[in-house]
């Protein structure tokens, strides 16, 4: 780390490199992502699972108003971590691009093409004077020519493709859990179970069905589905049972 006064000269504008080649504002944006609650995405042969932690700060708050998983098009969902308002702008861009593809070519947009449109937009905000980078990371999941696909975007405008990934707070812990437990032959319910278990790993495995928002995009109908709380509770009950069995 540079001395405090030295660093200040290079972290005011995002268009200014530090002498050691860093863009401090972009790095700060990544910190903003870490301050957000986590989201998880993973691929199964039958579809993509997106899950987000949506704990609320007060019992008086309407839980549904915490939006971290969005439908971008019939066949694409987006989960976010970081600044929710920034995420909404990017989700709206993704929605417009998805419909633009229908207008222009009469076709469903590919998940990678859509992710690239979003990351191209994010990148512009790392190179434009006076602008601020997007303080959000996204998981873009969907079906592309019958195949489940999952991509991550980060505040620099880089995209990564994953089998299973976590973004946001406690990312390292959750990613470690995914690396240990992910299997490529999971079914969709198994994927939901793994995603929710991974999200709850930093809280010692304790999670309330109401505190997670889960969606799937399945290959069978190439459609986005929100997973309702009842279904989640039944899956969580299974997790508890298997844990009790293994304890015995």
């Amino acid at each position, binding site marked *: 780390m540079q001395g405090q006064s030295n660093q200040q000269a290079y972290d005011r504008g995002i268009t200014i490199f530090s002498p050691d080649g860093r863009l401090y504002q972009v790095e700060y944006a990544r910190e903003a992502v870490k301050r957000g609650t986590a989201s998880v995405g993973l691929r199964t042969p039958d579809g993509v699972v997106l899950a987000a932690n949506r704990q609320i700060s007060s019992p008086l708050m309407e839980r549904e108003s915490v939006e971290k998983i969005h439908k971008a098009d019939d066949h694409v969902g987006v989960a976010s971590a970081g600044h929710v308002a920034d995420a909404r702008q990017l989700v709206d861009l993704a929605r417009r691009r998805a419909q633009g593809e229908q207008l*222009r*070519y009469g076709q469903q947009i*590919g998940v*990678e*093409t859509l992710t690239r449109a979003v990351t*191209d937009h994010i990148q512009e905000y790392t190179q*434009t*004077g*006076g*602008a601020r980078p997007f303080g959000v990371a996204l998981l873009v999941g969907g079906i592309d020519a019958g195949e489940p696909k999952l991509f991550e975007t980060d505040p620099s405008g880089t995209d990564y493709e994953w089998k299973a990934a976590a973004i946001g707070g406690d990312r390292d812990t959750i990613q470690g859990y995914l690396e240990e437990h992910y299997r490529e032959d999971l079914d969709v319910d198994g994927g939901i179970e793994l995603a929710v278990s991974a999200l709850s790993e930093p809280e010692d495995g304790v999670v309330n069905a109401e505190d997670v928002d889960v969606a799937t995009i399945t290959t069978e109908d190439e459609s986005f589905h929100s997973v309702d709380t009842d279904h989640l509770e039944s899956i969580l009950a299974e997790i508890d049972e298997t844990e009790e069995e293994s304890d015995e």
Partner: protein
Amino acid sequence: MNNWTQPSTPQGNDDPSPYEPELGSLPDGSQGDDYGENVNSTGTTTIGITTDDGVVIATDMRASLGGRFVSNKDVQKVEQIHPTGALTLVGSVGGAQSFIRTLRAEVNLYESRRGEPMPIEALATLAGNFARGGPFRAINPILGGVDSEGSHVYSIDPAGGVMADDYTVTGSGMQLAYGLLENEYAEDLSLEEAGTVAARAIKSAVERDTGSGNGVFLAEVTDEGVDIQGHNDFDAVI
């Protein structure tokens, strides 16, 4: 160090209009309706036929002024616009040439960005959008191509109408060519047989339509690519 400038919005192209090319712009269409006798048009008969092995496209070779004066006797009216797709020039020569250049650029952009060729149906939708949104008036081309879904032929009209068919004809000699095709088209034609049928249909039109004449260009489109050959003499291909 504190000289903040007014925040500016990045000038990206996040939402290109689906009715316009991404590169360049549509030509200004306000030059008036002086088409007809002063503008080279292809009069023309162009044919597209699908087979299981690919698509055959056939065109005559005449350019004319208002269908009454032959302004060129050796015109190639079918051009490759896609690794496995071709488009015919029908109507205003300038409009059709500009249309072809525009679509080629779009096809190349699509493929280089996505790493896979544009599906022919997507190309047909885009061509219809441009025909409708732009001043490529007085064009009525046929798009033929092969992709993972198989063989396709579309006719595209000046108002942007896009219609898929097993075989289709556009241009001033279309009734004459259809007359022959309605008798001789069959679903199980081979690519070679379809080429012969298409050449015969062009010959029918060339004999009686003043806007069509001077020989035939044949394009064979398969999943391997596009092969275009010109013939001044029909005997070689009938």
